[in-house]
């Protein structure tokens, strides 16, 4: 099998090809390792590549499958893991000098679950330091090496787009799965808060953090989520909501699905090409039988104030000791963020928690009118490396602010949100569309995202990295 063949297949199709004898876990692993060797010096998506162990495990998996000890779709498939997730015996740096020599003694729950289904750890992907940013230096965007991949799960998204990863994990506190998914033209799912255990994943902000998959196809995200999801005792915030079969209804019709389109905020200060691409995508959903419902998104100013407060305070609280003991070891942008968060009054934090409940209640009330909401993932395409601000009609905005504002509301409310590619800009960069659902209704989010994907061809386009 060639890489050009592999990248057109879903995980289930790859698994079928293995069982048909047309490929093997070893061949798949070697193809990906070869691609990493070919591209990663420029891309810098990986922090650690587990070459020897991955090949060994692939060999073992091939024997197990042949002998009938078949663990399912992921058995023998290499998975790339964000370097915020603890991996037993493999260093976990969190993108930080402070953690560069840290080697965990155990896997985080997500990795343990993936391995229990036979997945093989291919490598650890780069993250913005402690997930506290949306840039992920020094990783580059495979569509243009002059542009950022987004972050903080930039390494995972870049590797998926570049086909140097088959499937990957990410975490999302204010968009860190969906930002790079949008900028790199891949699928990224932030599930409902509590759907996936965060045990063994370094926190950015406990009450806003979510772990989820980053993949080439929506179906692959559903495959990964099926394994990642579920109650986990070491993470008391993990939900005991039953985990449905996310694949069962994935290809069901979307006829009659009501799609909420916000009249305010989400299409404001938005790049014209992004706006046009997302509106065209909504037309595609209408052609698939969906019905659009316009609505007013509530409490926007309160949402961003609450999000900013919770994120700042919780991140600063977590890193308070390190800021005192080793301030110079943080990246300058991260250090500044953490230092200012120490001074936000506790009463603001309490009010943020309280208004969060009001916002959640209001938005869940709105979900009586529709099944999903569709917005652009980002108001822009990937900025250039080093770019600090973006311009819109009537002014400029920092990149940091622009890249979170369409996404953070769904970290605050904990609602499931999927970013999928829905277009390309005139300068050849991907545009992302966000599909948001009710709490614990990843099934509908994935179904709508999958229907859109199958009706279009954005997911079949790949960057060529010279």
């Amino acid at each position: 099998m060639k890489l050009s063949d592999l990248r057109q297949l879903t995980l289930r199709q790859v698994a079928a090809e293995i069982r048909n004898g047309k490929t093997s876990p070893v061949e798949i692993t070697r193809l990906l390792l070869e691609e990493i060797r070919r591209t990663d010096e420029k891309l810098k998506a990986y922090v650690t590549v587990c070459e020897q162990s991955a090949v060994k495990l692939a060999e073992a998996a091939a024997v197990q499958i042949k002998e009938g000890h078949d663990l399912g779709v992921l058995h023998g498939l290499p998975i790339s893991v964000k370097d915020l997730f603890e991996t037993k015996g493999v260093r976990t740096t969190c993108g930080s000098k402070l953690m560069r020599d840290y080697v965990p003694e155990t896997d985080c729950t997500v990795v343990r679950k993936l391995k229990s289904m036979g997945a093989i750890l291919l490598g650890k992907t780069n993250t913005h330091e402690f997930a506290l940013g949306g840039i992920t230096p020094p990783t580059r965007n495979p569509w243009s090496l002059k542009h950022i991949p987004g972050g903080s799960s930039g390494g995972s998204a870049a590797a998926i787009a570049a086909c140097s990863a088959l499937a990957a994990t990410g975490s999302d506190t204010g968009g860190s799965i969906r930002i790079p998914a949008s900028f790199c033209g891949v699928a990224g799912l932030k599930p409902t808060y509590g759907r996936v255990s965060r045990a063994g994943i370094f926190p950015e902000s406990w009450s806003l953090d979510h772990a989820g998959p980053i993949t080439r196809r929506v179906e692959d995200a559903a495959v990964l989520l099926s394994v990642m999801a579920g109650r986990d005792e070491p993470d008391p915030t993990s939900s005991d909501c039953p985990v449905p079969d996310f694949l069962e209804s994935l290809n069901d019709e979307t006829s009659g699905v009501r799609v909420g389109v916000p009249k305010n905020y989400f299409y404001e200060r938005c790049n014209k090409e992004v706006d046009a691409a997302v509106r065209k995508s909504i037309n595609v959903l209408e052609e698939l039988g969906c019905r659009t419902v316009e609505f007013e998104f509530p409490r926007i100013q309160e949402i961003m104030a609450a999000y900013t407060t919770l994120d700042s305070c919780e991140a600063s609280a977590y890193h308070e000791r390190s800021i005192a003991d080793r301030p110079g070891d943080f990246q300058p942008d991260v250090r500044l963020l953490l230092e200012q968060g120490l001074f936000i009054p506790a009463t603001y934090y309490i009010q943020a928690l309280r208004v969060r409940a009001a916002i959640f209640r209001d938005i869940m009330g709105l979900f009586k009118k529709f099944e999903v909401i569709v917005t652009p993932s980002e108001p822009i395409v990937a900025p250039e490396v080093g770019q600090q601000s973006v311009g819109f009609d009537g002014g400029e905005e920092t990149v940091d602010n622009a890249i979170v504002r369409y996404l953070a509301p769904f970290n605050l409310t904990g609602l499931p949100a999927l970013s999928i590619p829905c277009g390309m800009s005139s300068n050849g960069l991907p545009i992302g569309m966000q599909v948001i659902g009710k709490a614990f209704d990843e099934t509908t989010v994935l179904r709508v995202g999958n229907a859109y994907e199958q009706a279009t061809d954005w997911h079949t386009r790949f960057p060529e990295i010279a």
Partner: protein
Amino acid sequence: MESISTGDLKAMTKIIGAPIEEGRLQIVTEILKQNMEAIQILAKLGLPKELEPTSYLMLLVGRSRQ
């Protein structure tokens, strides 16, 4: 809201024991000022008393059981 000065921040570092170096007071003050302006709305909310800090998590748990 009144503007925060580096003097104010220095006083606060003593009160809360925050480890900010003298040379960084200016830059931290600037970013804190920006953020405090952005989140000021939280100080002006008239939320009903039944909305508690833990209400969101309880609502989410409730949804998970539906």
